[in-house]
């Protein structure tokens, strides 16, 4: 018995040491080994970045040269210099206007999808009954390829921007609902019980525990949603529309203006990456 107690005391001393180490970690004394390690990490990071850039440059240069010397048919594959040219003459091609249309549609679809999705997910969390009732419908809707609804949507809301926004909404909404609901339901039950011990009502549990606990779920969903909204908008523009990058791609393809198609695709890629980055920055601000 006494021995055990002694052991425990020794161990608890060790524990205190551990704690002290943990708290002093903020200002570490830099040893030689540490320096070496940090250098190694840095070099690795740089070499990855350099390799990535090189691959990109080699790809572009090879494409350009192969097209210039006639090994690739630039009529079919286009050519970096011609893409750059199209890009620089944005205003001539009305590209800027098309970009604007696509952006408006995407952001509208994205915001609507997110807001509606979150609201519906909260309603389903609030009422397990409604949640159980709607479960099979949501599952079917989720696995249904939403593009199949395209013609129906056009007939219901008319060809044009509204149809495209509804398309983006259709593609992103169900996923948002399911992802957010899943997060809400899986909130730590113990934390909810803790709030209940203070006699919290359901609204307080929602606002003080469940929603803050799911901020990172929300941002993950937003990231998925940006991609999905773009898919919805572009496929909507394929179907209807007289403007937008999706329209440009279809049009360019039909009249064999591959420069236009490639430029549109690249701009689309840049737009998607920028939107993703914005959400990532927001996430870093809101999630600690």
């Amino acid at each position, binding site marked *: *018995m006494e021995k055990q*107690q002694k052991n*425990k005391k020794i*161990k*608890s001393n060790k*524990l205190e040491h551990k*704690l002290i180490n*943990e*708290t002093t970690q903020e200002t570490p004394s830099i040893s030689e080994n540490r320096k070496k390690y940090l250098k190694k990490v840095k070099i690795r990071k740089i070499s990855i970045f350099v390799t990535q850039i090189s691959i990109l440059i080699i790809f572009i240069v090879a494409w350009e040269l192969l097209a210039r010397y006639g090994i690739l048919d630039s009529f079919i594959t286009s050519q970096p210099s011609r893409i750059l040219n199209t890009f620089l003459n944005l205003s001539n091609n009305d590209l800027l206007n098309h970009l604007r249309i696509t952006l408006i549609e995407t952001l509208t679809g994205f915001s609507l999808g997110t807001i509606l999705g979150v609201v519906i997910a909260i309603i389903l969390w609030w009422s397990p009954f409604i949640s159980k009732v709607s479960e099979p419908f949501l599952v079917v809707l989720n696995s249904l390829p939403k593009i199949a609804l395209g013609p129906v949507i056009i007939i219901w809301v008319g060809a044009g921007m509204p149809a495209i926004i509804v398309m983006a909404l259709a593609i992103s909404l169900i996923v948002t609902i399911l992802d957010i609901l899943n997060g809400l339901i899986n909130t*730590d039950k*113990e*934390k909810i*019980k*803790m*709030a*209940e*011990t*203070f*006699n*919290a009502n359901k609204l*307080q549990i929602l606002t*003080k*525990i469940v929603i*803050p*606990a799911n*901020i990172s779920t929300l941002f993950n969903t937003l990231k998925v949603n940006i991609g999905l909204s773009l898919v919805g908008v572009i496929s909507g523009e394929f179907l209807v529309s007289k403007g937008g990058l999706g329209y440009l791609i279809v049009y360019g393809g039909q009249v064999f203006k591959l420069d236009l198609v490639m430029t549109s695709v690249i701009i689309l890629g840049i737009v998607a990456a920028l939107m993703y980055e914005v959400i990532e920055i927001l996430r870093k601000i809101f999630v*600690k």
Partner: protein
Amino acid sequence: MEANTQLQKKSSTKNKDAEKNKNISKALENNKSNFPDVVLDVKNICKTYQSKNGEIEALKNIKFNVKKGEYISIIGPSGCGKSTLLSIIAGLEDKTSGEVIVNGKIGYMLQKDNLLEWRTIYKNVLLGLEIQKANTDENKKYALELLKKYGLYEFKDKYPMQLSGGMRQRVALIRTLAIRPKILLLDEAFSALDAQTRLMVTEDIYKILKEENITALMVTHDISEAISMSDRIVVLSQRPSTVKNIYTIDFEIQNRSPLICRENPKFSEYFNIIWKELEKYGKAAEKQKNQK
């Protein structure tokens, strides 16, 4: 909270149930025991669960009381419904029949500290007050005082991630104390901690409770922990649980603390008695033996 207080006197078995608050002082004079007034009175609690497979009788005629300033432990084989009993007392769960009379506000401590990682320590401490819409300047000041008193003031703007397990549990206690409870319910409050931290934290929290003069009712499966902290231990049987025995733990020392009690020769005596009693109820005792 129920407004009326009930006093149960040990001296007179004839019940004087429906005494009102104003009569407390009178009762104090009449009753010469150390803990004159009853803070919590549990009367014939029964709990039956309904499920698809049938009924499960979890609690049967549970009755005991907790007097002011006492530290009571409830111990019993695992799955006997100890935690359910606490939830019923706190009003988190419905009871099938019986009555719980509480005189004063209840505080509740769970196994995990459940600090919200997106709030600072200070904001975490204010959570209970916020929920009860009592975050007045006065109460906020009181919460800050508690943080100061128990050595957490300098961490008030830190996040829970930056604190050790023991400190986090102390923050959880202060969060509960901030609502100024009369009685604290502890539901296996230390079992998420590793063995060494656990000893330190029980010592720590016991002292805080005594300092703040708070009555405590603890559920545990750890016999040593129960003996080292309690004035009385309520032993429950297997399902359907009934109160098998209530042991009075008296080390005959002033200013006892869990660690001091563990070194007392009477400790192992108590341990053996309660262990043997629990052993009769099967598995839970077996687990304890392995721990020893």
